[in-house]
């Protein structure tokens, strides 16, 4: 049985051509139209007509039989369906070749697809369509349209075309230097060429179009390229690492190579002081083995004897300079020696710091500056009264008697009073311990912190005002109708005077208050900057100076104020503490913890920079503990107002809180209307006081 596929401009032409090739007539063939012609537009999209002609049995019988006849007859029906599907349309010649395969192994091909010479062939059976899975890098076109599915069925009625993609990429590279000019890096991403080829695939019901990939790496970076770049960066030859360049040139994978390395500078060490004694004094009451708190053994004070070496001064160790890859020296960080201030009772012998008096060594270190001194101790066996006079001492003071009415005791170290303090004032830079009652007195422990806190607060408000004023002045100078020509002649004063009239009328009273406090506390303010700012503020806002004041000057002032304000609000190291059994009508300030160990406080104001702990009762007054408050009993049955305050992140603990107790956490207040036991109060996320 002979069949042929023919194409033509239209069906008629195709049939005629087919008949001619078969050498037969229209009546002797069955005609199957595979594709009707499509005219397209201007020849675009035009498709030929394709027909399949099969010689009929009768006609075939007249044909001379050939050796394949037997087989052909057996599979004739299947063979009727046989068609080759090729890329593009089918030239008859290929059809014939394919036909031969079909005739040789007809069974094996039914319902199967295969690939030969990069083209897809298939043969459908009535019951089965071959399927094809399209692999990476392969594009399958059905009737010139890209097949998007991953797996598709193929039919011989369609025209298939397979395309494989090749890839090519150029070598990329760059060279750069780090900021310190210590290293030069080379990044290389070698170029490559990927060739893909679709191998022949054996006929199968399901075939997968998987390409064979050949990747060839072309690293086109050359040694000359790199050296030229290094030269343009002025990299010195001795720092270039040839072996790294070679590695980069041979690289098959992208990578970064450090192709030149300088010598980095080695930092030295500043001078320092090595202490020969343990200066840490154990502060605060300690709990002994019985679980009792011993308030007499409150502090172990370090002490030295005459002639004892307190510390050794070490000189700075200079660093080693380095070299950049461009052969420039890279200096090491400068190192500095300590600046030693030998205070009272101290001499230096070579690099040793030696005590010439016995007492408590004090070492104060601020940056490079180290101040060493021996704090002596003054012991007063009687009362402090009119016969002894006020006591002011640059060290520790211990008083065995009372401190009487209107007397003052001031110490740069600690104060210990064994009897009562009545209507007197105690001021210590260190701790204050009173063993008996305190009545109507002022107690302040810790370095001028109350003053600093108060001034810092004022400074903060004033600084905000001045910052606003700077904003207003800037706004004015940008106003189209405003001339700033008189600033150069008279400075900002005329403008400031107008601004103080209304907009900033609250500023001059604040300045006055600040200046007043600084003047009063001048002797207690260590740092001169507080006074300097007072002078500046007076000049601008209080006096009618003729000195020309510029905006820059005010900005500078504002910045100084801001810095100082920040220092003043930063938490004070609670190095001091106050311990007393009971207080009445007194004011107690301490930068550290405050312990009231006895009966408690009546109408007393307490400010503790650390923890406040009252073992007894507090009735009336106001207490504040920056690191929390613990009190046994507060308020009274008569409802005496008693304010217990902590910052918003702290807790208040009270064993028995009676009426009149006002809890203040941050800015939130809560007054107790009735007695509560075991109060633990804190603030929740909605800014409300809650009890645990």
């Amino acid at each position, binding site marked *: 049985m002979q069949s042929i596929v023919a194409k033509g401009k239209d069906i008629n032409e195709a049939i005629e051509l087919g008949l001619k090739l078969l050498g037969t007539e229209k009546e002797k063939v069955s005609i199957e139209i595979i594709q009707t012609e499509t005219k397209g537009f201007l020849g675009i999209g035009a498709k030929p007509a394709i027909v399949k002609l099969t010689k009929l049995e009768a006609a075939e019988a007249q044909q001379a039989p050939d050796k394949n006849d037997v087989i052909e007859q057996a599979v004739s029906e299947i063979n009727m369906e046989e068609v080759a599907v090729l890329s593009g349309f089918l030239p008859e010649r290929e059809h014939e070749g394919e036909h031969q395969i079909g005739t040789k192994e007809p069974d094996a091909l039914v319902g199967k697809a295969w690939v030969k010479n990069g083209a897809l062939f298939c043969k459908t059976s009535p019951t089965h369509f071959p399927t094809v899975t399209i692999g990476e890098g392969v594009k399958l076109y059905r009737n010139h349209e890209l097949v998007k599915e991953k797996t598709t069925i193929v039919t011989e009625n369609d025209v298939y075309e397979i395309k494989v993609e090749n890839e090519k990429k150029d070598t990329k590279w760059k060279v750069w230097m780090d900021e310190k000019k210590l290293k030069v890096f080379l990044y290389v991403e070698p170029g490559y060429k990927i060739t893909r080829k679709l191998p022949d695939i054996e006929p199968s019901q399901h075939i997968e179009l998987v390409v064979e990939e050949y990747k060839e790496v072309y690293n086109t970076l050359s040694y000359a390229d790199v050296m030229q770049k290094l030269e343009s960066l002025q990299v010195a030859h001795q720092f270039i690492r040839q072996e790294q360049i070679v590695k980069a040139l041979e690289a098959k994978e992208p990578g970064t190579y450090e192709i030149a390395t300088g010598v980095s500078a080695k930092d030295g060490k500043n001078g320092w002081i090595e202490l020969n004694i343990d200066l840490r004094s154990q502060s605060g009451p300690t709990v002994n083995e019985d679980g009792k708190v011993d308030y007499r053994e409150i502090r172990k004070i370090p002490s030295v004897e005459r002639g004892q070496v307190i510390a050794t001064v070490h000189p700075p160790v200079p660093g080693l300079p380095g070299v950049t890859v461009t052969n420039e020296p890279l200096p090491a960080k400068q190192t500095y020696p300590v600046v030693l201030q030998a205070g009272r009772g101290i001499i230096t012998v070579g690099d040793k710091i030696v005590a010439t008096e016995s007492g408590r060594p004090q070492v104060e270190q601020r940056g490079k500056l180290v101040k060493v001194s021996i704090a002596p101790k003054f012991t007063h066996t009687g009362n402090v009264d009119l016969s002894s006079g006020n006591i002011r001492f640059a060290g520790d003071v211990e008083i065995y008697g009372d401190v009487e009415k209107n007397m003052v005791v001031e110490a740069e170290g600690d104060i210990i009073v064994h009897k009562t303090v009545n209507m007197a004032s105690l001021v210590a830079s260190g701790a204050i311990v009173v063993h008996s009652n305190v009545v109507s007195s002022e107690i302040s422990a810790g370095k001028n912190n109350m003053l600093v806190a108060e001034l810092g607060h004022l400074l903060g408000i004033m600084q905000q005002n001045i910052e606003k004023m700077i904003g*207003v002045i800037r706004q004015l100078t940008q106003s189209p*109708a405003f001339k700033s*020509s008189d600033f150069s002649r008279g400075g900002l004063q005329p403008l400031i005077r107008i601004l103080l*009239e209304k*907009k900033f009328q609250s500023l001059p009273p604040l300045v006055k208050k600040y200046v007043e406090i600084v003047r009063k506390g001048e002797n207690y303010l260590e740092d001169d900057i507080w006074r300097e700012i007072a002078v500046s503020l007076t000049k601008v806002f209080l006096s009618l100076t003729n000195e020309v004041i510029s905006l820059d000057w005010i900005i500078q002032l504002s910045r100084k104020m801001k810095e100082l304000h920040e220092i003043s609000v930063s938490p004070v190291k609670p190095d001091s503490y106050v311990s007393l059994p009971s207080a009445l009508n007194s004011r107690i300030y301490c930068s550290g913890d405050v312990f009231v160990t006895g009966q408690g406080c009546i109408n007393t104001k307490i400010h503790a920079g650390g923890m406040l702990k009252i073992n007894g009762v507090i009735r009336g007054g106001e207490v504040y503990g920056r690191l929390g408050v613990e009190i046994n009993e507060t308020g009274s049955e008569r409802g005496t107002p008693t304010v217990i305050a902590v910052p918003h992140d702290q807790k208040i603990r009270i064993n028995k809180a009676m009426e009149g107790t006002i809890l203040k956490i941050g800015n939130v207040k809560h007054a107790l209307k009735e007695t509560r036991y075991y109060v633990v109060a804190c603030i929740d996320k909605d800014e409300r006081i809650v009890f645990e």
Partner: protein
Amino acid sequence: MIQYSLHENGEYLDVKLAGDLDIDGTEVIEEELIPNMEKYQTVNINFEGVRFVDSTGMGLLMNMVQSLKEKGIKVTISNVQQDVMNVFEILQLPEILGEEIFI
């Protein structure tokens, strides 16, 4: 340099200012204009011709209004250009001198 013209109508004086109200006008205002204004019961300062001001000029204006008020003279300020008014407002001049004088 500020220039002014006086238009009197019995007890009422209308002062028309022209030019920039600035530091250069100090003498003119303090030594000529204010003594002249003090002779009337009601004074209006017309700002229509004033395009620019500086801080000294603002000081002069405040001083002028306040010293006239002290003498019981009714002062008003009129026809202030918008840009100049912006400067007045930044300095809160209406609050200082009284909102009612700006007409």
